[in-house]
């Protein structure tokens, strides 16, 4: 089958994402939902998550650049991102969010800026992997439907 090498690549990619904690058990629940209901769900969810995360990260950047930082708003945004990342199974991003909330609760601006930097890094890494995952899935689908 023409899609076999892509399937192998996808399996390897997902296995490494699980092994390196980019993804956790929650992502497996989502995979099961997709298996039970048909293709498209994971793409939708991953896309929604990436959109949310980008928006929140920009907002956090703006909030931390204010002369007087509103830590309440910062916390609310990080809380949202933590929620989304937990729901999609993005373990590393969720963990950094927890760290972020801790420094935020201490009104530690420098700590928040450092945490935001780390979130941006983790999210960028994850997003690249998600993009590869979606591309591979699309290729597999295209080849299998022929």
């Amino acid at each position, binding site marked *: 089958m023409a899609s076999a090498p892509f399937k192998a690549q996808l399996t390897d990619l997902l296995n490494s994402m699980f092994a390196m904690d980019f993804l956790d058990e929650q992502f497996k629940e989502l995979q099961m*939902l997709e*298996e*039970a209901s048909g293709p498209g*769900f994971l793409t939708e969810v991953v896309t929604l*998550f990436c959109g*949310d995360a980008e928006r929140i990260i920009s907002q956090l950047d703006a909030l931390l650049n204010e002369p007087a930082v509103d830590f309440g708003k910062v916390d609310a945004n990080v809380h949202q991102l933590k*929620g*989304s990342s*937990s*729901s999609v199974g993005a373990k590393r991003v969720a963990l950094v969010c927890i760290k972020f909330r801790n420094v935020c609760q201490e009104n530690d601006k420098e700590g928040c800026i450092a945490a935001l930097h780390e979130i941006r890094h983790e999210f960028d890494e994850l997003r690249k992997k998600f993009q590869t995952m979606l591309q591979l899935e699309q290729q597999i689908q295209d080849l299998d439907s022929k």
Partner: protein
Amino acid sequence: MEIATQTQFHVLAVDDSSLERKLIEKLLKTSYQVFLYSVTTVDSGSKALEFLGLKEDQKSNASTFPYQKETKVNLIITDYCMPGMSGYDLLKKIKESSALRDIPVVILSSENVPSRVTRCLEEGAEAFFLKPLKFSDLARLEPHLSKSKNTPEKHNLFKSKTVMMKKRNKRKREEEHDEMHETVGVTGPKLKLTPSD
């Protein structure tokens, strides 16, 4: 075309996050396979009350928006932390309403705060689940739901993961045939309300 049956089960899901709404909707639709179901998602407590036919600022006995039969809801699942009206506030308003108080309400929260859990359960929530919601949570809900007079009691509401996986495998072999035989009292296409977001 929509066909209503006696076993129709309608869930209202309330969450300000579009990602969460998508997940809850998918989870419900994948789990509830016995019934003709519908899932409505809204992004706020006030929209939920509007959908239920109750205006925020009205007391239940003075309501000029009586509870409509068409919008009958069998279960409400709401996020706790929402801007504006929280899930707890929504729960209170529902329980204060004579028209709505029998509808089971389930609270979802990303944080396990014991006082929060107690508060919600004392206010009449059927259950309090940590996000993200799982299949196993829905299975745990079932005994709470059969108490409600809104719920058809004879059928097994929730398919366990194992049953669902078996169904998936079977479905891969003979899709149409099995669906017709496994669903109970259902004919025609699935009823689906457009999410209001």
